[in-house]
C-alpha cells in the first residue's frame, strides 16, 4: 500500500498541504503585479541560477537576480522593494538571453523597480534624469563647451532636437504631467535634501 508522504511536524504538514499558504508578511498578489508589468511568467522560474551566473553585477556585490526571482514568487514584497541591490541591475539582458525557461528576469527587475517607485522608493539619479528631460527634453543636455565644439565641426550649435525646437517641449511636459511624474520627482528629491 502506498504511504502518503508527509512531514512529521503536523502543523507544518497542514500548512504545506494548503497551496494557498503564505508566510504572514508575504503578498500573494505581488508576483502577479511583477508578471503583468514585466510581461514575463516569473513564477515559472526553477531557480537554476543561470541568471546570477551570467550577471556582471553579481561578482562585485550582494545583488543576486536568482534571489529576487525567488522572493518575488514568495511574495516578499517588503524585502524586495526596500533592498538597495534592486538598483544594481545594469539591464544587460544576459540573464534573459540565457534563461532556459525563456523568462525575462531583467524585465522582472524592471517591474519590481516600477513597483518600488510607486511607493516613492527611487534612487536620486533616476529622478534627476526625469527633471532634466522635463526641462530640456534631454537626459544629457547640451552645454557651452559642446556648443563651441559643434560649431567648429560645422554643425549647428543646437542639435535638431528639442534643443533647437523648444516648441516641442510643452508636448513632452504634458506626457510627463499626465502621470504626475515631475511633481513626484520634485517632491521625493526635496524630501531627501
Amino acid at each position, binding site marked *: 500500500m502506498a504511504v502518503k508522504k508527509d512531514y512529521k511536524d503536523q502543523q507544518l504538514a497542514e500548512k504545506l498541504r494548503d497551496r494557498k499558504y503564505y508566510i504572514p508578511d508575504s503578498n500573494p498578489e505581488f508576483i502577479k503585479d511583477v508578471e503583468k508589468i514585466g510581461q514575463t511568467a516569473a513564477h515559472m522560474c526553477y531557480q537554476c541560477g543561470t541568471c546570477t551566473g551570467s550577471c556582471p553585477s553579481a561578482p562585485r556585490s550582494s545583488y543576486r537576480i536568482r534571489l529576487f526571482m525567488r522572493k518575488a514568487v514568495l511574495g516578499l514584497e517588503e524585502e524586495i522593494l526596500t533592498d538597495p541591490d534592486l538598483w544594481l541591475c545594469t539591464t544587460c539582458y544576459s540573464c534573459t538571453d540565457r534563461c532556459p525557461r525563456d523568462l525575462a528576469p531583467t524585465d522582472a527587475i524592471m517591474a519590481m523597480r516600477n513597483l518600488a517607485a510607486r511607493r516613492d522608493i527611487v534612487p536620486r*539619479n533616476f529622478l534627476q534624469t526625469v527633471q532634466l528631460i522635463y526641462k530640456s527634453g534631454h537626459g544629457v543636455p547640451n552645454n557651452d563647451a559642446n556648443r563651441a565644439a559643434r560649431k567648429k565641426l560645422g554643425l549647428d550649435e543646437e*542639435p535638431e532636437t528639442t534643443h533647437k525646437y523648444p516648441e516641442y517641449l510643452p508636448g513632452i511636459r504634458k506626457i510627463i504631467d499626465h502621470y504626475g511624474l515631475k511633481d513626484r520627482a520634485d517632491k521625493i528629491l526635496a524630501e531627501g535634501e
Partner: protein
Amino acid sequence: MSGNNHQYAFFLGCIAPNRYPGIEAAAIRTSKNVGIDLLPLKGASCCPAPGAFGSIDLNIWYAMAARNVVLAEQMGMDITLICNGCYKSIYEVNEKLKHNDELRDGVNEVLKEIDMEFKGSVDVWHLAELYYDPEIVGVKKIADSVKRPLTGAKIAVHYGCHLMKPGKERHFGDTENPMWIEELVAALGAEPVQYRNKMQCCGAGGGVRGYDLAHALDITNEKLINLQEVGADALTEVCPFCQLQYDRGQVEIQDKFGITWGLPVLHYNELLGLAQGMSPDELALDLHAIDVEPFLKKIL
C-alpha cells in the same frame, strides 16, 4: 548624386550630439558616402533612457518613446540611430506598440492630449545594421568607401547590450559570439581582435552609472583588463553611452582605483570617418577624455 540614396529620419539621442558631436558629424558624412541620407528628426527628445526612465514607470517610457516614433511617422520615414540605448527605447517600444493592442491604446490615449497618434507605420534600425545589410549598404560598399585603410591597427569590438539582447526580441542571430561588427571593422583595413567576455556589459546601463559609479567602473575595469590582454590598440563600439563609460570611465578609474589604461575608444562612425579620410579635427577627437593620438600614430 544623392538622388538614389536611402533616406532615414536620424534620431540623435543625447550623448552623441551633446557630448561627442564628432559621432553625429561623422555619421552624416560617412553615411552619405555609402548611399544613406540622414535627415533631421526635428523636435526629437531623449529616447528616453531605458534604464533611468523605464525603471520608474514603463508606461511613461512607452509614451515618451512613442512620441519620437510618431515624429518619424509624420515624415513618412524609417528611423535610424547610432546608440544602443536609443535602440532599445525606440526600436523596442515601436515593436511592442505594433503588436500589443492594449499597450498601443493606452499610449494613444496619452498622445491624444498632444494631438498625436501612434500608427505603427515605420521601422527602426541601428545605423550599424544598415551598414552590414547588403540590401542597403553591405560590407563591400563600406570597404570600397575607404580612402585611408586603418592598416596595422588591432581593434576590439564592444557590441554593447541593448542592440542585440534580448536575442529573442531582436533579429541579429547569435548573441554569445557575434562577428558582424568585426566584419565591418575588417572592411576598414584594421585587424579585429577577440577578447575574453566580449559580450559583457560596459557597466553603465540600468541607471547604475548614476546610482553606484564605483560598481559600474569595476565592471568596465574588468573589460579593460581583458582588452589589454590581447593588446588592442583601440576599442570600437556603436553606442555613445558605452563610449562615455569607457572613455570618461578610464579617467574615473584612474581617480578611484589608481589604475591607468589609456585605451582609445572610438565609435564605429568615428573609425569609418578616419578611414574615409576625415581628419581628427573634423571628428572632434580632442573631446575624448582618453588621448586618441597613440592610435592615430598607428594608422596615419
